[in-house]
């Protein structure tokens, strides 16, 4: 099968689990013999410092000025196209981000400003674009990104003209407009893959424009893939999709059969790790409140918060307010070897997410032999049994469990032993198989819908 896949991050350009998921999925699809054209909204730099080893890009074909095309050696059947863009969907976009993007000389024209409008022009006809007129019209924060999604859609449509594909697969809201446009212009079925929703990221304070894009995306799609039952339920409840259109494909992890090296660091202090974006969704304040409670009973413990995000400064202040500033370390955003290193140092990983569609990081922790506490408000808790689970708001219980893990080596040993066994059973191959099944259903439905 030929898949036209729209993503927005890919190792090494990741801010969260989505890039990791796209990496695992595309590689497994490639291994299964499917051909993937993967479109990225970012310029590829040569600075490869991630924990995922990427080889040098091979052939660079320039279909479109400004679009880079390359191949990764380990991905036999995956081609990458990247579009210069500044999509930063998970963090507040900085002001003026748009000015740095120049989009000159492309074949993209600006005949229509509505990327969702069905086009009658067909493959060779007009494509969709964003002119500077639009860009100026949109507001500063979400406007930047919403405008970007439209421009990304235009480029994707142009890019798709030279491609041969059976199905369009779009990952998360930033790519939905592009997915819808490509699917409509080239008359192909659309599968959208929901890795997170606006309700996860923003709680009840949803950005209406983003919600609208998400809603439109999941309704226009022929099939919807949710990363968990947690997310599926949210889609049914908040987006009004009919249950028979959504299926669950859980994420996985690449363990490569490698055993983690035992930590050689000798120390008296135990380390409890938070690793993830420091944003509302991830519940960093609950981690600190639990830390405060733990420190009342256990002195030799340090809490490490690895990650960046709009709440990072606030958390530094909160740690100080709680009087535990000297026991909490903020590392900033970690990449590559540093991620490995911090896992190896950790005695325990805690994911206190308020609303976590999936949560790949706990799988990474388990594959590094680190025991894990996760919030029950997460998709990953559906597939893990050998972990400790708490409600994110129950900081007393979180502290109770943190202390238990720190105090009782037999608990750590049992969690590790069974946890690593369990995590090894989760494979991207199974996840890719789930996607292929969804493609098949989307194609079948599409055929019936439009004979």
């Amino acid at each position, binding site marked *: 099968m030929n898949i036209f896949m729209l993503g927005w991050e890919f190792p090494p350009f990741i801010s969260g689990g989505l890039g990791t998921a796209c990496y695992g999925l595309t590689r497994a699809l490639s291994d299964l013999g499917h051909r993937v054209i993967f479109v990225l909204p970012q310029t590829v730099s040569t600075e490869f410092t991630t924990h995922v080893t990427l080889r040098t890009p091979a052939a660079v074909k320039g279909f479109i000025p400004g679009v880079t095309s390359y191949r990764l050696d380990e991905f036999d059947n995956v081609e990458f196209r990247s579009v210069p863009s500044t999509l930063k969907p998970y963090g507040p976009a900085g002001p003026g981000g748009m000015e740095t993007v120049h989009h000159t000389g492309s074949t993209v024209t600006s005949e229509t400003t509505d990327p969702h409008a069905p086009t009658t022009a067909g493959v060779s006809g007009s494509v969709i674009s964003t002119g500077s007129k639009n860009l100026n019209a949109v507001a500063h924060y979400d406007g930047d990104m919403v405008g970007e999604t439209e421009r990304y859609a235009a480029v994707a449509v142009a890019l798709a003209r030279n491609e041969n594909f059976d199905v369009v697969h779009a990952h998360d809201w930033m790519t939905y407009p592009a997915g819808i446009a490509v699917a409509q212009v080239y008359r192909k079925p659309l599968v959208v893959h929901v890795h997170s929703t606006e309700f996860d990221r923003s709680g009840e304070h949803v950005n209406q424009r983003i919600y609208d894009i998400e809603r439109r995306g999941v309704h226009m799609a022929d099939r919807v893939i949710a990363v968990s039952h947690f997310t599926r339920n949210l889609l049914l409840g908040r987006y009004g999709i009919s249950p028979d259109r959504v299926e669950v494909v859980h994420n996985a992890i690449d363990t490569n059969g490698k055993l983690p090296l035992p930590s050689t660091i000798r120390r008296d202090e135990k380390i409890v790790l938070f690793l993830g974006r420091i944003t509302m969704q991830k519940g960093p304040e609950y981690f600190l409140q639990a830390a405060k409670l733990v420190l009342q009973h256990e002195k030799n413990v340090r809490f490490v918060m690895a990650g960046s995000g709009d709440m990072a400064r606030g958390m530094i202040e909160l740690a100080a307010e709680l009087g535990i500033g000297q026991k909490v370390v903020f590392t900033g955003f970690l990449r590559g070897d540093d991620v490995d290193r911090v896992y190896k140092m950790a005695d325990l990983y805690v994911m206190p997410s308020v609303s976590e569609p999936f949560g790949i990081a706990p799988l990474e922790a388990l594959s590094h032999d680190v025991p894990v506490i996760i919030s029950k408000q997460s998709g990953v808790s559906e597939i893990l049994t*050998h972990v400790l689970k708490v409600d994110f708001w129950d900081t*007393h219980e979180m502290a*109770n469990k943190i202390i238990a893990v720190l105090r*009782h080596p*037999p*608990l750590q040993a049992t969690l590790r032993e069974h946890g690593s066994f369990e995590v090894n059973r989760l494979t991207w191959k199974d996840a890719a198989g789930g996607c292929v099944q969804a493609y098949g259903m989307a194609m079948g439905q599409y055929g019936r819908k439009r004979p």
Partner: protein
Amino acid sequence: MASVCFYFQVHQPYRLRRYSVFDTDHNYFDDTKNGEICRKVATKCYLPANQCILDMIRVHEGRFRCAYSITGVALDQFATYHPEVLDSFKRLADTGCVEFLAETYYHSLSFLYSREEFNAQIELHQKKMMELFGKKSTVFRNTELIYNNDVARAAHELGYKAVIAEGADHLLGHRSPNFVYHPPGQQISVLLKNYRLSDDIAFRFGNRGWAEWPLSTEKFAGWVNQVNGCGYTVNLFMDYETFGEHQWTDTGIFEFLYHLPGAVMSLPENDFKMPSEVVAAYPPIGEFDAPHLISWADTERDLSAWLGNAMQSNALQELFNLEQAVKAKKDPELLHDWRRLTTSDHFYYMCTKYFADGDVHKYFNPYESPYDSYINFMNVLDNVAARIR
């Protein structure tokens, strides 16, 4: 001639309440939940089943006979939460057709950790039997039928005439569980559970996917009759909660129980015997050699349900490490609390075997996970330790 020997196990643990590391009080047990469960099981099982057995004894004019083993912690909870259950057991005792086996008061694994505590708990249980039913037991059963040659020796030293064990295939080989055996070099008799026929009732009775479903009393009596000539006694040992709780009333389990004696005794050479009568009637025909520990649990018939992972052995070890210090305190309440922690169920809840698959272990587990149960138990144990210091 085939005898049918029923023994029903009656047990309810004192379940712990959620006890966090931040708790400091000494109220470890979940009175509300324990009371609820006790009353629920009494209504669904103990009271109707006792009535059924009483009726059977009367209808068959004393020719139906059976045995119970009731733990001290179950009896204590009946007294607190539903005294009517005690009265109904007393009525059964008064018929003279029911006997009560000896076991550890707290349904504990003490045999594995402290012979002193093991003996003490059996003695406590015997006192309770005398007090409630006016009889001393002559047959011993260890918690969860945990057994080896040493258990037999210990029971013999305490004066018991017989001990109950699982009829484990790997020890019996081609031999039948339907005879009485003795341990190597010992005089005490061993009664072995016929697990096939026992489990047909206890586990498979209501299973519509089972080839023998529905199980009629005639069919079952036919299987009993097949024993004639190659055995003396069919030992049907099972949890009493089989009736009405594990097998619901609508499976017809009570009707089955009620009509079984008639079906079995339609062959005049068949009868029902209590364990002590089996021992008196049939001499041991050979050796049952159990150098290693066995039990009646799971397919493994070993100790892995209570001692299968590091958490379980750690919790048990830490618990029994406190024994002498707890006793030295001479504080009856502290000792009773500590002893209620020796109940095997606490360690069963920590079992990680099959946990991911969800099965019988999950059904009996009040915790969301074995890890939660370990954490809770260790928090309680920490508090017990603090009371000693």
